[in-house]
């Protein structure tokens, strides 16, 4: 296992591990590490909308639904402090790890602090 640190938004908010992008999604019903590639056809899940009633992420390509509740509970272990996130990935440190930027849809940028 190894630890990778990314930003919650903006520059450096995406870790690409073995060419799979991971971002940190903040939603009204919980925050989680999101593999930003839809398991259906590889659509950009970082641009997904959240279906409020079902807590599902809807892929912008084919409308495939992915459970966000599952990601909160069973996703990659992560801890956010302020605007930084530490994620524990399985396996050893990989050369293929790169930190890049991915835009997030408004539904994945919920600001809990501002909502007070």
């Amino acid at each position, binding site marked *: *296992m*190894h*630890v990778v640190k990314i930003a919650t938004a903006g520059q450096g908010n995406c870790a690409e591990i073995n060419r799979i992008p991971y971002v940190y999604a903040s939603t009204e019903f*919980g*925050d*989680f*590490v999101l593999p930003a590639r839809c398991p259906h056809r590889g659509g950009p899940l970082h641009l997904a909308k959240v279906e409020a009633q079902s807590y599902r992420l809807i892929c912008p390509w084919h409308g495939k639904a992915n459970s966000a509740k599952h*990601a*909160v*509970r*069973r*996703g*990659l*272990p*992560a*801890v*956010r*402090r*302020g605007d930084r996130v*530490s*994620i*524990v990935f399985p396996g050893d440190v990989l050369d293929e790890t790169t930190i890049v930027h991915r835009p997030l849809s408004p539904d994945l940028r919920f600001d*809990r*602090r501002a909502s*007070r």
Partner: protein
Amino acid sequence: MNHSLPAYQPDLLSGPELTAAILRYATNPLYLDNEEWLNDDNPYRRQLRPQVLGKLKFDEPLRRDQVLNYESLAAHRMLTCIYETDLVFLPRSTLTPEKYRDYQAFYSPHNRARGDVVRPALEKFAFGFLEEEVDVSGDWSAESLETFLRDIDNRVKDAVLPAEKAIRESADPQRAAKMWLIQFAPDFLSEASPMLRNLLGNTGDIQSEWFKIVIDEYGYGVHETKHSTLFERTLRSVGLEDDVHRYWQYYLPGSLLMNNYFHYLGKNHELFFRYLGALFYTETTLVDFCVRAAGLLDDVFDGAADVEYFTEHVHIDSHHGRMALEKLILPVVQRYGPIVIPEILKGYEQFQIVAEIADEDFVTQIAWMDEGPANKSLHDPVHRAIVDGRATAPVAHIVEPRGELSNTHSHQGDELCHIVSGTMKFVSGFESHQILEAGEGTVIWRNRLHGAIIESAECVYEIHSVGDYRKCMS
């Protein structure tokens, strides 16, 4: 038989009820304003400025950007008093009848009960922001937790804290270093007391491992090696006194936040697991910090500072960090399962935020102290803008007699102090002041600790609440 009971409601005071309870607590004569800057060998006298508490709101938790404001300082001053009624403090010298009354009043059931009534609301107010600053998600295991915590070894170990840089670069490094040591006094003079809160009861073999760390802190019963004794020597070596809370009025909100955080975790045993995470972080990082602190004090005081307190920690905390992980955290997770991991992680991360806030607060205070002469110079252009009508601000007209001491406090916006007649000694920190005569004054930065004492038969002055003094300059 059908017994009908009212629904159980956890009690948290709010609104006028909370304000009234705070005033009942803080109007204890122990907490009234002092006529001196220092508390002289009396650990029971702590200034809470109850005369303003009725105007402050403690209902909604502070936001991260509010934790250095006066409400925060007021709440942490109260919490320090409340937590410390669990600790035994005795003065250095004879218990005079007056001091004996203070001793009895501080530990009286009335004082303790009134404090406990307001404590939950004050804790929510003062620490609530930390719940939003840290979030734990995903499927954690003992293995991923250990990987995460051991990653602390990859930190930049010789990264100088902004506070250390501020001391070295200060206009008066010795004054800044004394102010720094004063900030540690609430913690270091009763070192490890919060830890002891978790020793009572029965937590199996964890208790014995916990105890091993505590006995190091207490020097195995040898008074000369107790960590608080070492810190007393550090204080004396640089010309400070070592009695508890002598420098109460110079504590910053960030410093009290850091000290109170461990009391908060230790007092509320539902946060036991959180304490473990915070303990691991502090014990591990203190090693590097203490190496730098010893070097800093050596440099600033030309070798005259007694730094054994810090060199002792360089050695023992390398053990304590490892013990906290291998003998406390990992066995706890093994026994109780991953349900406790989020709390451990919260403690680990929250304490880092708390430490950053304390550092930021101290750095700004040193800048504020160093800028004393410049702030005095700023009086003229800002006052001119007010007189000319280019700036308007609410004004308070105040008349005070000789010796009147405004106990230390701060304001949410910048202010201008303008002396109409008489002389004021304006204090912006330990050993830091400006003398203000008629026609003079000073800009007062927002959220910066300050106080004043009148040095003429009478002083007439004005406080203009300008909000942002820079806007008066354009």
